[in-house]
């Protein structure tokens, strides 16, 4: 008997079949990975299990009983909990209040009592959170723990985690895995969605791979390798993408001179950062998340003004300029949060052309025909799974990222600013994005790659700058950079004078 069994699940969105007769079985007490390319239908399947979507066909069994799940309330009653990527916590409330919210018998809340109960629960499940802390003071990792506690508090026996590690720093991933393994020993069943194959191989017992909405196989971890999984996912073999050839000594195109900035709390986040990126090179910025990468991205994108310093593109001063001016100056921007780079309610074509609307205007009117034609060309060139008239929010993560990539790179920018370009992307899409960035380098663009993924930085960069507490603490040439050296710099162990 399975903790959960889904049989013949079909879900259609218009004429798109997101889930195509999927069978999925979750054993009692296992951690079961759900793998698949962006848009394969993983989130859709789990949203059906959690009652957020309704399957067009198929049936669901929980502990051998056929059930009808029409809302998350049903799912919770059946012991199913879900931690989605976008948290559903109320920031001004305390942890305890958030945990009991909507699950408090009676109307009156007794603060002391719920605090004690939640603290007890946290203790019992071994989840480290302070029950009286305000959620808005918590880090992303801590918030995620609150979400897990919230599910367990509602007696979840099955926990669905949709890309839980995409937002975590390595240390938090370790804590999450410890927690999950302990809960697993106590009989909790976990569905674990991730694009990171090494994580899947670390924590999961069995793996189900989806491709184009179909289940292409469920395997035991010991029977597969990472490359076998990658092959199952994309239907072909994948090879890591790495930089080829030495850097051609180009002219510096992007110059950042002594730039400082404050974060949204008004605290210093960038401290006199100076960098130069030459044409034809990729400069990687490595660092543990929260050390000023976001602010650097915003300052360069025109969505935040620096407090001092200068930014020049090809000699043109773009310090504090707005996004439109920066785009015109030849900077192509890939934002760290792709949802901040597209308007979900507008169509793919509208998002594709909004930056350059003047080119699609005739006699003061939008030239819809040309907008669609242009979008179709890019959809084909960048293999985006979407129609020009689809609303952007219906795109899977990978396809949304491709949309931004297409929009940005099609204009052949002089400078490419890529922030976390492969966050949340599947192996195939990751490979694709990296290939595109290398193409830009070949073309002679100056690429600034900001990433928390050290492997990505090492595979692509000609030079690597390390950012720590808002300062550049070292710049290394690719061949002198080792994970150990970078790791030391990233944790602020010592300052290295640049000789790159």
């Amino acid at each position, binding site marked *: 008997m399975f903790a959960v069994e889904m049989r013949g699940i079909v879900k259609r969105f218009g004429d798109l079949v997101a889930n195509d007769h999927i069978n999925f079985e979750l054993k009692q007490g296992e951690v079961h990975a759900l793998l698949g390319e962006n848009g394969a239908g993983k989130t859709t399947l789990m949203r059906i299990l959690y009652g957020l979507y309704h399957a067009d066909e198929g049936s669901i069994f929980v502990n051998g009983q056929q059930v*009808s799940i*029409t809302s998350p309330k049903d799912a919770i009653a059946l012991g199913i909990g879900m931690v989605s990527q976008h948290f559903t916590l109320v920031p001004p409330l305390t942890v305890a209040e958030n945990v009991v919210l909507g699950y408090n018998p009676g109307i009156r809340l007794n603060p002391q009592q719920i605090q004690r109960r939640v603290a007890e629960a946290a203790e019992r499940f071994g989840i480290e959170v302070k029950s009286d802390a305000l959620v808005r003071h918590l880090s992303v990792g801590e918030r995620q723990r609150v979400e897990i506690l919230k599910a367990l508090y509602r007696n979840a026996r099955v926990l669905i985690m949709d890309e839980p590690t995409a937002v975590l720093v390595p240390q938090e991933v370790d804590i999450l895995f410890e927690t999950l393994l302990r809960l697993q020993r106590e009989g909790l069943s976990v569905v674990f969605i991730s694009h990171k194959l090494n994580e899947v191989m670390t924590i999961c017992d069995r793996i189900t791979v989806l491709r184009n909405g179909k289940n292409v196989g469920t395997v035991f971890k010991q029977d597969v390798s990472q490359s076998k999984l990658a092959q199952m996912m994309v239907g072909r073999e994948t090879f890591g993408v790495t930089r080829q050839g030495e850097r051609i000594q180009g002219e510096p195109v992007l110059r950042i001179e002594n730039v400082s900035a404050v974060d949204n709390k008004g605290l210093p986040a960038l401290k006199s950062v100076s960098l130069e990126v030459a044409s034809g090179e990729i400069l990687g910025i490595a660092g543990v998340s929260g050390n000023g990468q976001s602010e650097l991205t915003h300052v360069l994108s025109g*969505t935040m003004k620096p407090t001092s310093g200068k930014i020049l593109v090809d000699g043109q001063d773009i310090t504090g300029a707005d996004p439109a001016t920066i785009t015109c100056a030849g900077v192509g921007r890939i934002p760290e949060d792709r949802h901040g780079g597209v*308007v*979900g309610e*507008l169509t793919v074509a509208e998002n594709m052309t*909004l930056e350059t609307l*003047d080119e*699609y205007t005739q006699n003061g009117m*939008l030239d819809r025909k040309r907008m669609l034609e242009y979008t179709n060309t890019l959809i084909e060139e960048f293999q985006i799974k979407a129609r020009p008239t689809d609303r952007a929010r219906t795109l899977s993560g990978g396809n949304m990222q491709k949309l931004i990539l297409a929009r940005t790179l099609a204009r052949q920018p002089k400078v490419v600013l890529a922030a976390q370009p492969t966050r949340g992307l599947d192996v195939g899409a990751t490979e694709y994005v990296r290939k595109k960035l290398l193409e830009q380098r070949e073309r002679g663009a100056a690429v600034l790659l900001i990433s928390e993924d050290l492997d990505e930085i090492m595979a692509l960069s000609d030079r690597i700058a390390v950012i720590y507490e808002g300062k550049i603490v070292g710049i290394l040439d690719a061949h002198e950079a080792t994970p150990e050296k970078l790791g030391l710099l990233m944790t602020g162990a010592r300052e290295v004078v640049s000789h790159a």
Partner: protein
Amino acid sequence: MLKFRIERAPSPVWMRPLLPLLAVLITFVVTSVFILLANANPLTAYYYYLTSPFTNRVSMIEILVKATPLILTGASVTIAFASGYWNIGAEGQLYAGALAAAWIGTVVGGWHPVLAILAMLLGGFLAGMVWASIPALLKVKLAVDEVVTTLLLNSVIVFIISALLNGPWRDPVSGWPQSPTIADSAVFPKLIPRSRLHLGFVVAVVMVLLIWFILSKTPLGLRMRASGLGQEAARFMGVNIQRTMLIAALLSGGIAGLAGVGEVAGIHFHLIDALSNGLGYTGIIAATLGGLNPFGAGVAAIFLGLLDTGAQSVSRSLGVPIFLGNVVQSTLLLVTLGVFMLQNYRIRRV
């Protein structure tokens, strides 16, 4: 035991036109209590409510007369809300337009009617724009929340007008607190003889077409919708949010100003301080019911005009207190809003 639950699922398309009818039905059930308390037969009352506006030519046309300012304020609110600018000030902007029209109407005496009416429209539009520009500039320059400022300015202009009407502008002939009657050349021509339906209705339809055109056909409109639907992302994509909102706010104010012009030049022929009595606020309801779609808002405005007309004839013909009509009307508004919200849910048996 039977158990039901509500789940999220959009209602099928064929049901949408039935929703207003459903709302009317629910309202009648709810309000029959009050009508019984007023010693009238609810069934008779509702019969009048629904049919009386259609029983004669005058009241059928009256629906459109009542709808005219609502179409304009609905359009005004639509373009602002669609751009993410929460203009609650259509009421005040309407008064600004009315004020301008009442003044222009007294100085265009000898002019050719075409010129006089153009001057009225232009002046009213500009006045609405100017009044709207105060909160709009505060918003885009100093990031002052527009909901508060637009709302506050509504009372301010009503006070200004009251002061004018009770002071320097009091009509010397009648002695009432109303402005002098506007010149004949400034009066809006009637669209249908022996009715109150005036040129303002045409202006309203043109404005609906205009904002539909702007929102769906022009780059400006796309930028407006982008900043309304996702301000941060739109900013990232180089949309100048400040400028876009400013334009939306000014257009919105101008269109609301036209509603004021219509009420002065087509209905009252002078300015009184009870000229609007909430037309600007009802415009918010029209825009919301219309789903921030210009045509939707127009249809909703006509529906609201029907309610208004019906409410008046019910109290007239049944001798029930006049405010009973308002009770029915306000209940209907609430129920309609509720029904429109609930159309995204379905009740299922479990």
